[in-house]
């Protein structure tokens, strides 16, 4: 399909894929008629659209003492109904046929647990309950992963990301240890597009963004040690890859806790460099760097202004002093007391076998103190959080006092903090809020009074998440919390579907997924009606608001709110990319360099025609404009309700004229398929086409 012939489809993809479907306010006012006009011989009723409606019906009666009956004397036209003005008064009311609940939850789940629906997933849950999908996604170890077969670039990148077998740690070329940051991004995007374990990919990105680190900061840091840009780029890339690999592995463990995930972040050399602990010293009365100490509380665990103050930041900064990085033997990469391989200061370490790792420097460590001194869990949390003990014997007190430690034992100060922060009520609250924002809608905040007699649905869900966190032992099991969210009314009800704005990553990946079927059913490379080489997503993501994976400069991670992503400029970019994606590769608008202005999509391509053939195998169907429109509307707007799509359906199947008023299709209009054929070559089965 080509934007020229059906700009509306492009814009549908643009405007409506921009939002994810989901859940929300359980109660909306019932749909009502808002306007009645008498226009000569016509009687026109109008109403406001209502979410997830399959059909609008007008009922009427001449006498309120009599039952209303469906009034078939008029014609439904989107959100209006036109009948004959008979001259005699009648009473009208609107009736709706709702979408079935499984369809609603399916649309929500596939947009939240996954990077958007694919045609195959939508088919699968037309008749099956989506709950089986939710259950399997919660246990990724039970799902067979086939993504490696879907694109040859995945194996190619994994080859580069693999640890090198030879003593030379990081090499040029395409062998193990040769990956640079673009390779990691492309590999990450390809997995998001195709992975069967979608929730695992979603959560890995969530953790990567929550425990944000910055590739460029590592790159700069390693200038001290590597004169060669490519060398330090590979080193910095490997740190990012090591981090997400550890999270990914942790998430495969059914009992994974937040403490596990926080520990991985704290031990990550990328984090130690990013938030400046690497050069911090607290010994000899020195003033340690406060950056990590602040952000671990403000951003990674408790939430801003939530249970800590500057005193705690300063106190804690002493404990982190000594958490640094050094160059050690590859086998010692998880040993914080490993011997450094050489005096690295000012030395080039190129081509020396080894790896950069978290190393604890005892002599940098500050004098241990207590943190959260004399602080108590606020009453707003209520029991059990206010009544249980934390790191001392006094209920409700969360003062953490470090025992007197010496030598290498002082590393334990940091681990005490991790264990303590991981399950504080503040952390339970803030992380539950963040997960709800990720999976439900963005209007959650921390600071609720959980003891209030009447909690908002949002506060109630956060509290339930915290209860799951608190009461299942060991505390902080991520899957228990997710399970609460997925079973909640807020998640499962329709009323706030399309509640979230997609990030540029979610937007581009989900657009490709939405039109992506394996046209021969093999699931192999080259068979997909919509695909990307992975690499081509980086440029559009950058343009859609500066989203550069693994390279966020600010420690708050990329925004979770739509306002952080949407402005006129970024909408123009989203529109351009979508248009380019829908234009056949090689034609104007999808040709030339991706850095220029005429090829926004690059090696991300889609062929709606190939997709259509799999959905409508009969030629007669392919020539039926209404059926063609329904295919695409069904794929792009599951959960919207057919009746809410009528105007789009009419517009898409007639012309590009605005659907201000629905109009019958002109008999001479060519079928959309004919137009598609005229402009979209059936190309690109060749694997070579995809190679990066």
């Amino acid at each position, binding site marked *: 399909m080509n934007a020229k012939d059906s700009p509306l489809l492009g814009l549908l993809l643009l405007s409506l894929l921009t939002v994810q479907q989901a859940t929300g306010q359980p109660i909306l006012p019932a749909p009502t008629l808002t306007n009645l006009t008498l226009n000569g011989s016509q009687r026109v009723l109008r109403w406001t659209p209502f979410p997830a409606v399959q059909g609008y019906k007008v009922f009427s009666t001449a006498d309120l003492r009599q039952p209303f009956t469906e009034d078939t004397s008029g014609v439904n036209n989107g959100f209006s109904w036109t009948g004959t003005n008979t001259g005699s008064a009648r009473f009208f009311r609107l009736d709706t046929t709702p979408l079935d609940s499984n369809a609603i939850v399916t649309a929500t789940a596939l947009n939240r647990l996954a990077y958007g629906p694919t045609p195959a997933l939508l088919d699968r849950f037309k008749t099956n309950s989506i709950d089986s999908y939710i259950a399997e996604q919660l246990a990724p170890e039970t799902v067979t992963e086939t993504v490696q077969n879907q694109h040859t670039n995945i194996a190619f990148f994994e080859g580069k990301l693999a640890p090198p077998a030879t003593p030379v740690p990081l090499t040029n070329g395409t062998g193990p240890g040769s990956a640079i940051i673009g390779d990691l991004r492309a590999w990450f995007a390809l997995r998001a597009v195709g992975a069967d374990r979608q929730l695992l990919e979603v959560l890995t990105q969530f953790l990567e963004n929550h425990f944000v680190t910055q590739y460029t900061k590592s790159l700069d840091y390693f200038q001290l040690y590597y004169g060669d840009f490519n060398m330090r780029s590979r080193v910095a890339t490997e740190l990012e890859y090591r981090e997400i690999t550890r999270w990914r592995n942790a998430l495969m463990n059914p009992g994974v806790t937040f403490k596990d995930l926080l520990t991985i972040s704290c031990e990550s050399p990328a984090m130690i460099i990013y938030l400046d602990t690497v050069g911090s010293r607290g010994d000899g009365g020195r003033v340690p*760097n406060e950056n990590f100490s602040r952000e671990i509380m403000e951003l990674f665990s408790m939430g801003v202004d939530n249970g800590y103050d500057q005193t705690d930041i300063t106190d804690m900064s002493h404990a982190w002093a000594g958490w640094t990085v050094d160059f050690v033997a590859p086998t010692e990469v998880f040993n914080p007391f490993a011997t450094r391989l050489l005096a690295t200061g000012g030395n080039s370490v190129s081509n020396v076998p080894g790896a950069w790792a978290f190393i604890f420097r005892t002599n940098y460590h500050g004098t241990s103190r207590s943190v959260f001194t004399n602080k108590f869990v606020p009453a707003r949390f209520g029991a059990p959080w206010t009544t249980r003990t934390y790191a001392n014997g006094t209920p409700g007190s969360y003062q953490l006092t470090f025992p007197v430690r010496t030598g290498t034992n002082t590393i334990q100060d940091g681990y005490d903090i991790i264990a303590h922060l991981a399950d504080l009520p503040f952390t339970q609250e803030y992380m539950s809020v963040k997960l709800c924002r990720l999976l439900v809608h963005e209007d959650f905040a921390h600071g609720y009074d959980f003891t209030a007699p009447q909690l908002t649905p949002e506060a109630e869900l956060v509290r339930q998440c915290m209860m799951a966190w608190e009461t299942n032992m060991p505390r902080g099991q991520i899957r228990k919390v997710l399970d609460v969210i997925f079973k909640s009314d807020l998640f499962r009800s329709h009323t706030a579907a399309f509640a979230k704005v997609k990030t540029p990553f979610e937007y581009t990946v989900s657009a490709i997924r939405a039109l992506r079927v394996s046209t021969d059913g093999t699931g192999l490379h080259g068979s997909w009606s919509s695909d990307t080489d992975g690499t081509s997503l980086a440029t559009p993501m950058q343009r859609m608001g*500066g989203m550069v994976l693994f390279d966020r400069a600010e420690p708050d991670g990329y925004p979770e709110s739509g306002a952080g992503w949407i402005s006129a400029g970024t909408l123009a970019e989203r529109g351009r990319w979508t248009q380019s994606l829908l234009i056949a590769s090689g034609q104007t608008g999808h040709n030339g360099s991706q850095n220029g*202005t005429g090829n926004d999509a690059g090696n991300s391509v889609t062929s709606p025609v190939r997709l259509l053939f799999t959905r409508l195998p009969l030629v007669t169907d392919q020539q039926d404009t209404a059926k063609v429109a329904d295919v695409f509307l069904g794929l792009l707007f599951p959960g919207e309700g057919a009746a809410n799509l009528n105007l789009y359906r009419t517009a898409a199947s007639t012309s590009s004229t605005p*659907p201000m008023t629905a109009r019958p299709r002109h008999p001479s209009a060519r079928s959309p398929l004919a137009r598609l054929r005229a402009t979209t070559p059936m190309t690109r089965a060749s694997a070579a086409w995809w190679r990066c």
Partner: protein
Amino acid sequence: MPFINTLNRRDFIQRSLLGGAGLGLAALTNVPPFAARALAEGTIGLSGKKLLFVFLRGGNDGLGSLVPVQDSAYSTSIRSTTLIARDGATDYAATPGVADFPTSPGLTGTFAYTSAIRLGNGFAALHPGLKFLAPVYNAGDLALIHRVGYPKQSRSHFDSQNYWENGLPNNNVSKEGILYRTIIESGLASTSPLSAVSIQSALPVLLRGSAAALTNLTDPLRYDLLGVPNSASTGDVKATNALLSAQSTPFPDKKSRAFLSLQYDGLLKTLSIFSSLNFTESGNTYVDDVNTDGGSNPYYLFPTSQAKNGGYAFNGNNTGKYVVDQSGTANSFFASLKAAALILNHTDAVIAGTEIGGFDTHDNQGGATGLHATLQQRIGWALYGLRKYFQIYGKSGSAPVTGAKCAWSDVVVVLLTEFGRTTIENTSRGTDHAEAGVMFLAGGGVKGTGKSGRLTGVVGCHPGGTGAHPSDSNAPWISGPANQAGGVDGSMFGISDRYLKRSVDYRSVLGEVIRDHLGATQNQLNRIIPGYANESQEHLLTGGTVTTPIESSGVSTPIIGEPDILG
């Protein structure tokens, strides 16, 4: 509020019908523009006065920018590597009222002078990277305001940026911007397709709000729809029509949709306006009207590429002659800054701005050279270049562009940053988050040194007496805590307490600009910055001592109110 957007959408349909085909700009409101405009008070947008903002993200080290060089505690005992050293040959106690401008003739490196630059008030000095502020300062077009903060100062980037942008200290729920409210008060949001613009990756909170979509351009050069291939003339029309079509179709109300729809409106309204401006690199022909920096060539005002970076290309590709670091970050910052300037000069937009990051110098901050110095160079040249751009190419300039709408006297440039940094250096040779910082204001209408008999353009960085700013007398010189290191009490530097206290509230500075420059009435200002409506406790207007409940209990802070820097 359910369905409100549906009503908006219906309004939009009606307007579009009224306006006929295309964008229907004339029909953006059912009220005739002059009538709608007359409903608003004040003269925001009518006076031709404009505002250009740059947010310095990360917390600029104010003590490294506007250096209290005569402060007895300012020494290597608190800052070993980040100290900006004195020049032994300079008498910093002298009060000539003007700044030194160490120019670099011939092949002398642009930033060869590495000592603190005397500002002439007997106490303060400039970072040497800010040397290009000297001519701006000496023309009386620059105000440098030290010790700017707000009550219960947060040392979190994200909280503090939010407060600076929403104008509501300690309210981190509101994401409604102070400049957004300014535009709403002006009445322009409903009468003008373009009122405020940012050029950065996302619409900043400053310009965010629910009732109007102010415009953000991620890349001015790419701000169009791809259009339709092979049809340059009709492509955008078709794409625009498709957008209009999607926009005019009602939809069920959902949390994000009203917001999205509003932004699409903004897109549709502004596409054609921006396509008439030349944002290209080749269009960047703006140069100084004198030989810059004591050399023999006029430099480009916006260093958007290496060839346009200071004296580099004029001196045999000498990298020592750059006016800012030569980097993609610097080039793209100046491209955004140029776009903001062009928009103010060519369109009716009242507010334009951008941001620049990298100020979170926890680690290896550097002193006269290094990370922080690089950032200072960008700030210094930005203000120098903007002044020259409007003086030469602006309305009634020496070589005005066709249809120029903005003179240097029409614009105030304001630099914001969320906080200053600790007075004492940390062990990573950097500084951490602290409290009060520095604001920079430039413009033809700024009342700096030499204007109204003023001896200085520096506020809040003088202990009193000759060289002090008249506004400083509104609040006593705030002493730091007792100097435990044997220095002199009364310094700006706390030795046990590393946080500079404020004597100016950022809202007073912005308030003065919004009212006295942009033309808000005091009543409007009380709504734009609600703290103004509580003068008895906040003291934003005329100063006073702020105590509980505005401050934490036990804290009392004298502030000077508005700093009297305009007019």
